[in-house]
């Protein structure tokens, strides 16, 4: 576990305290300063705090993987991994890292000519070469093909956990955050909540936290704010009356935009588009156990 306590002033003001436990996801909206925080931890942006503040990037025990892997395109895969290593054994050590990650066959390939998933594993091998105490991953899912994304990410997380190195992955994607051991929410320049993904997805503390975690429906009730996920609303009789304002297929599911006292978004798993039409009246039921009370 690594305890982080950092303050940045530029390019964005941040004052954050949180823990990195195992594979930790740092979830925040675009522009919330996730990448800046990672860069500051890597020593690439000035910041105050602990750990390592004041040390130059070259001396920090940190493995940094920026968005899109950032392999050196003028070097082979093997030379990329050996970049941080010195001495006669450097290429041998690099080859062992590649073999351990199951990508030894890529060693001689040009780093500019491999797939996004392969590049990410090479970037991991390169970051591991220095024996880091903390791995920093900026949007690890961004450069991956949608079709193989989840499998590649799961494999990446497995490889990191197998080595027992704490990792901090910045993401804006709640689906990616769900794969983590520990989840940290960044908004308005500070950490608004942290905990296990299950605890956070189940109990967001504020409206912002709930929005970050994918909650879409909010309404005031008795001086507080309630929220519910689009997929937790039921339409099988009972509940409040609403009018359908929009119908859209979302993969195998169906997304309904409805108007009740407030706008409501409903996600029906495996819903048939033909069964719904704009202007149609339906009844929406909000199961008590799925409604969450959040602070402002």
């Amino acid at each position: 576990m690594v305890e982080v306590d950092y303050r940045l002033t530029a390019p964005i003001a941040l004052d954050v305290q949180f823990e990195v436990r195992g594979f930790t996801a740092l979830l925040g909206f675009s522009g919330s300063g996730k990448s800046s925080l990672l860069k500051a931890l890597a020593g690439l942006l000035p910041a105050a705090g602990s750990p390592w503040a004041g040390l130059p990037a070259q001396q920090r025990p940190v493995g940094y993987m920026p968005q899109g892997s950032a392999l050196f395109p003028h070097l082979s895969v093997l030379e990329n991994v050996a970049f941080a290593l010195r001495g006669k054994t450097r290429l041998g050590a690099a080859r062992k890292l590649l073999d351990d990650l199951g990508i030894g066959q890529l060693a001689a390939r040009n780093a500019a000519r491999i797939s996004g998933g392969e590049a990410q594993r090479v970037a991991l091998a390169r970051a591991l070469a220095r024996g880091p105490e903390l791995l920093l991953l900026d949007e690890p899912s961004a450069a991956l093909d949608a079709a193989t994304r989840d499998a590649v990410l799961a494999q990446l997380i497995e490889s990191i956990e197998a080595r027992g190195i704490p990792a901090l992955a910045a993401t804006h994607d709640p689906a990616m955050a769900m794969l983590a051991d520990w989840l940290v929410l960044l908004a308005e320049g500070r950490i608004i909540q942290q905990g296990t993904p299950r605890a956070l997805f189940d109990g967001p503390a504020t409206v912002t936290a709930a929005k970050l975690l994918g909650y879409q429906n909010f309404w005031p009730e008795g001086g507080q704010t309630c929220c519910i996920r689009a997929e937790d609303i039921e339409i099988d009789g009972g509940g409040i009356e609403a009018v359908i304002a929009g119908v859209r297929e979302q993969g195998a599911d169906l997304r309904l935009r409805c108007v009740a006292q407030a706008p409501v978004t409903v996600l029906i798993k495996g819903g048939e588009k033909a069964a719904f039409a704009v202007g149609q009246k339906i009844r929406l039921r909000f199961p008590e156990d799925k409604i969450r009370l959040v602070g402002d």
Partner: protein
Amino acid sequence: MKALTGGLLLLVLAFLTVPLFGLATGGDWLHATISADDLRAVVTSLTGGGVALVLIFCAGTPLAFYLARKRGRLSALAEALVLIPMLMPTLAIGILLAAFYGPAAPVGAALARIGVVLTNSPAAFVLAAVYAALPTYVIAARAALREVPPELEDVAATLGESGLNLFFRVSLPLAQRGVAAALALAWVRAMGEFGIVLIIAYFPQGMPVRLWVDVQELGVPAVFPLLAVFLAAALPLPLWLGLRGRRAAL
């Protein structure tokens, strides 16, 4: 319409290349020769240009890297200072250099006392070439270095690399085609420099001044052998690098 633009294109290309036909038709190849003075001029140009190119690379690359990475008032000022000599007529630079480095000027006199004579000497020839070509190199190399993604330098820093090592392992290799093209441009400027050398380095004569003298004394047809050497020295390297860079871009 297609035929019209095609025709226009060919016309422009023909216009640009017709002077080369003069090489075959305009010279008195049977009687013209290369004199000992001509040969000395070739050696002066190639060695002086070579020394200037090394100096330009060593002095210009850090400046180009600074201009590529920094965006501020100071770097804007630095860029303006680089552009001024590039945009000035070379004859004007020559006169200003003579006024600054000449034997009558304080700086020129001080340098002469420690044995560095910067008018009509090999050092003056190199100085002229550097003034002619350094700004061109800096501006072109800056553009090439600006293309290097900063996150690759960031990653290299987190992998323990810094300073010159980082530059030579990451930044320069990634910008090598552009930097090579910038060097080629600088070479062309240095080889062809006439205005500055006319004032501060008439001797030792490089190829342009020698050609000028030969034309005055022997007439145009007689200078074609030296002209051919001049073109051969100045053109092939930049042309090759330019085409190579274009292929890489495609």
